[in-house]
């Protein structure tokens, strides 16, 4: 079983800003990390020379996280442009990107994230893009808690704006007891609390639910049906 050599030489020297190149290198490494996760148990001790420089960082950084660069600031490991990857219940990949991730070395499983952009699988064919100012990611429990307002946009045309929430990434569940605003293709929904259950297939809104349906949505169904 040979470890596939990862080619570290950058293809040509296209004009790229330093951070883009770093970012691309980080992406390249996340694939490497994933491959290594599989290869390590079997692989021989030989590590590819180009990879060694990064490997000591990934040993102190929690698994499944790849960073562009790290620094230690007042007792915290600060990771720049981290990419957290993992799989949820029905092995759909999720990917969390952030500007910065801070990890208190005394509790390595908890990671504070700043300016988060996450692609969370909701159900077959539907992914949700989540953007938040800040969040606390529990690596072990694979949960994410948001204390500040954030938005979730799904590929099926829904955009939810929430004040806070706790998300079980593995189970694909989310809940909040604060007001929620959801824009759907058919209209707008407001409620005082929201739960997203069974992997995003069910969204439950409670307490003073208000929905405004856009008459165009009613009109469309009439024209499309009478056509055939």
């Amino acid at each position, binding site marked *: 079983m040979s470890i596939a050599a990862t080619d570290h030489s950058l293809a040509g020297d296209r004009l790229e800003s330093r951070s883009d190149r770093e970012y691309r290198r980080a992406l390249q490494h996340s694939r490497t990390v994933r491959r290594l996760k599989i290869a390590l148990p079997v692989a021989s001790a030989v590590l590819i020379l180009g990879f060694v420089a990064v490997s000591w960082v990934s040993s102190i950084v929690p698994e499944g996280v790849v960073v562009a660069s790290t620094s230690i600031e007042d007792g915290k490991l600060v990771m720049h442009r981290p990419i957290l990857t993992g799989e949820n219940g029905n092995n759909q990949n999720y990917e969390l990107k952030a500007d910065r991730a801070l990890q208190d070395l005394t509790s390595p499983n908890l990671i504070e994230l700043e300016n988060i952009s996450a692609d969370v699988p*909701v*159900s077959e*064919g*539907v992914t949700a893009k989540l953007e938040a100012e800040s969040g606390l990611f529990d690596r072990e429990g694979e949960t994410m808690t948001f204390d500040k307002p954030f938005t979730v946009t799904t*590929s*099926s*045309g*829904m955009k939810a704006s929430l004040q806070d929430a706790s998300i079980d990434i593995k189970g694909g569940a989310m809940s909040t007891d604060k007001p929620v605003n959801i824009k*759907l*293709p*058919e*209209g707008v*929904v407001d*409620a005082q609390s929201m739960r997203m259950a069974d992997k*995003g*297939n*069910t*969204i*439950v*809104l*409670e*307490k*003073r*639910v*208000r*929905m*405004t*349906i*856009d*008459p165009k*949505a*009613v*009109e*469309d*169904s*009439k024209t*499309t*049906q*009478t056509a055939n």
Partner: protein
Amino acid sequence: QETATRMPGLAIANDQPIQIESDKLEIKEAEKRAIFTGNVKVQQGDTTLQSGLMVVHYKNGGDGMTSGGGDIESIDVSKKVLLRTATQTASADKGTFNMVRETAVLEGEKVVLTQGDNIFIGCRLTVNMGSSEAKLESCGGRVRIQLDPKSRQSQ
């Protein structure tokens, strides 16, 4: 035996948005259903529909989920249905609004339609939401009409 009337309130007033309120809403993405439960109130223009339960069946446009162009196909209401328009009210046990065929059907042991001071009682009220023609059927029995004596003189 049926009574024909008109129910302009139920015409699909395209320009006005539909407001829906309820205690709870459950959106079932996979089944394309939105289930409103508890003090459900739907309002469009001066037409109001109230019930204990309402299920909105919608479909996303052409290629399924991702296109996002959600359209409403039909709405089922049950648990004490009360429909009120500017000039009429109708109460029933359950009802279905088919947005595609533009028909509304209210059914129940006793469907009570009031129009001004007149009260009509039947078992099924069918409304063509396009033409707003409404038909109250008695399903076997007679449509009992309670004409208010005062209203007869004014006709």
